[in-house]
């Protein structure tokens, strides 16, 4: 029995990775849920929007690095992030102008917009691969760790180490700041409230003098910021590969739906639920149980419920269970 070591092992292999992955999913799901709530369709291009914003950030980061600009112990990408967001905003606003606006004027049905977003997805996907290529790109620099496993062991005298990567720390801090800003904006500012009003009841918003085009404009800008931040954080934490971002669509959709589509709080909760389930179910618990179980009873196998290759399956099964028992998601979303 070694409770302390078990807790540290859990923190190191489950809590920290799950919290940072959960933050990334939550930011992605917030973008999806905002579009669903205000533009009323699920945006299949969201993964590729994230990839585009991240790509711009990566390119700017490389440029900064070539100029010798650095951000001390923090990754240079954080300096490049605002430019990445601007680039992504420009792309989304051009897309809205050239593509989506026409369908809004036609009062097109949401499912048509979903198909439109598939076309946009192809274009953005092609664009990103065309510009930066389909390969893995690393752009993280600065200090690698906030706490190193070895230092932790020395300081505490435990045999289990706890490592927190700089990127994980940044992810969590950024996510908290961004989410706080977003909620302040939606609940306290006039523009934010008008966006909620439009999402709630389009006709009445119109009768109240709210300009739909303006609401849509702000929505795309916020979505661009959220998508780029989510994408950059994910890329710093792992690496940037266009195809992986496309694949993030499933866990992101799952997070948004589990929480209740159209509900921002739900998107955040959903992100963490999906992340925690993925990590706990695909983690090999041998080590932790080894500390907890009495001598002789320690497990021989890995005690891994599912291999990591099935992480998509986990998010999906969670989603299915939630939908079967609570079709509107955990936090009453708009569905059904």
């Amino acid at each position: 029995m070694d409770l302390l070591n078990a807790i540290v092992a859990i923190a190191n292999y489950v809590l920290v990775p799950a919290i940072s992955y959960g933050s990334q999913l939550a930011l992605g799901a917030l973008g999806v849920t905002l579009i669903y709530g205000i533009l009323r369709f699920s945006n299949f291009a969201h993964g590729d929007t994230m990839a585009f914003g991240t790509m711009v950030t990566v390119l700017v980061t490389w440029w900064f690095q070539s100029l010798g600009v650095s951000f001390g112990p923090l990754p240079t990408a954080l300096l490049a992030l605002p430019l990445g967001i601007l680039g992504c905003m420009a792309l989304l606003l051009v897309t809205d102008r050239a593509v989506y606006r026409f369908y809004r004027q036609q009062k097109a049905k949401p499912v048509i917009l979903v198909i439109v977003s598939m076309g946009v997805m192809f274009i953005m996907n092609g664009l990103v691969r065309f510009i930066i290529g389909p390969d893995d790109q690393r752009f993280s620099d600065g200090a690698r760790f906030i706490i190193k496993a070895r230092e932790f062991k020395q300081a505490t005298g435990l045999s289990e180490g706890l490592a927190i990567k700089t990127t994980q720390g940044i992810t969590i801090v950024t996510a908290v700041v961004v989410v706080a800003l977003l909620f302040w904006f939606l609940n306290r500012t006039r523009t934010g409230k008008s966006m909620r009003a439009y999402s709630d009841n389009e006709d009445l918003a119109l009768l109240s003098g709210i300009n739909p085009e303006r609401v849509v404009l702000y929505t795309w800008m916020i979505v661009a910021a959220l998508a780029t931040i989510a994408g950059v954080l994910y890329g710093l934490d792992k690496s940037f590969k266009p195809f992986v971002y496309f694949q993030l669509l499933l866990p992101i959709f799952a997070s948004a739906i589990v929480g209740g589509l159209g509900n921002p709080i739900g998107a955040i909760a959903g992100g963490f639920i999906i992340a925690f389930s993925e990590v706990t179910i695909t983690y090999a618990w041998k080590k932790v149980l080894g500390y907890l179980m009495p001598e002789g009873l320690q497990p021989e196998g890995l005690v891994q419920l599912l291999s990591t290759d099935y992480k998509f399956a986990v998010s999906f099964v969670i989603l299915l269970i939630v939908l079967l028992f609570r079709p509107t998601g955990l936090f009453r979303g708009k569905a059904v």
Partner: protein
Amino acid sequence: MNETVKNVGLFALVGALILITGFMQSWNTAILILNMGLISAIMSIGVNLQWGFAGLFNVGIMGFVALGGLAVVLTSMPPVTEAWAAGGLRVLSGLLLGAATIAAAVIAHRKMRPGRTRGVVMIVILVGGFFLYRAVFDPGVEAVEAVNPAGTGYLGGLGLPVLLAWPVGGLLAAGAAWLIGKTALGLRSDYLAIATLGIAEIIIAVLKNEDWLARGVKNVVGLPRPLPYEIELQNDPAFVARVAGFGLDPVTASTLYVKLGYSVLFTVVLLILLWMAQMALKSPWGRMMRAIRDNEVAAEAMGKDVTARHLQIFVLGSAIVGIAGAMMTTLDGQLTPGTYQPLRFTFLIWVMVIVGGSGNNFGAVLGAMLIWFLWVQVEPIGLWLLQVLTSGMADANPLKQHLLDSAAHMRLLTMGVILLLVLRFSPRGLIPEK
């Protein structure tokens, strides 16, 4: 210009494009495009059935295609007797245990009264069942995969004729579709899109990781063929003599013969399915489906069971996609789970259906052939275009290098542009629904 003329013209155009490919590039390429076009056409018919006639949004086409592919392995490969002896029964009983666990949980959910007890019982059944299943299943899998891992390492199939795998692929896909539809097609609204999106990824994950089933990413190669091998033809004096009469050399002639043989087979299947789809469309059943689609409230008031009808058409459409998936794997001669990509096998099929004309079977066929042609040919055309555009630049220019290297990604961009243009300017597709 009347409609029939226009439609025939459109088909003739696609035919001409393929012929031009034959004359300009090679007949091999042309027939390859034709063959995959025919398979894509069948997939499109399946998706069109779901989207065009019932408004069901399936974004898991890739999963059904892959199930069709799996069917080919399970049906036509010879069984690996050693593997069966080593752990086949154990694997099977493990799977049965897993299924029994889920069934028991469902029964408990139905029979018991709602409340905490029911929840606890269900959790106990599921958790207990899971560990039991793993305890039986895992050693079996290990044993099976240990049998000659470089060559087999899986259970193999039933050793039946490969053509039988096509309907089996349909059945397998239909079974999966029934399960998905049963859970995801609700009463007032459904969540089919996310359900199919997820299941497709899971099917691919299973194919990639369950080596005992179809060797996972080690791929199953050398699948039996419905047609003779080229080398057999080349060694057949009668064949050599016959093609010599046409002035062809035996090597080229044998590859063309085999590929054309596939074309004929695929065309037959396509025509049968197209005919069936058309008949279904015109039958009372088809009229009812469209009545439901156009006014569900009225159809429901007339006593139509909308959910059951939706389930029906979803299963049918998916079965057709499964058949196409089996045909594709037969054509490839191998099952390679790593090649299944949603962009290629789900979203591209959607482009085909929308461009061709949702709700029109002929439109689906036309869209499939046209889009498949473009999907193959945009790459060389794009490369050529970029070469022309960059011809003024020095060869060492990094921009030129980059552009030429990136030509391969032009096809995604082009598909997006085509989809958006059609949606905007011809929203009902090239051959609209009547």
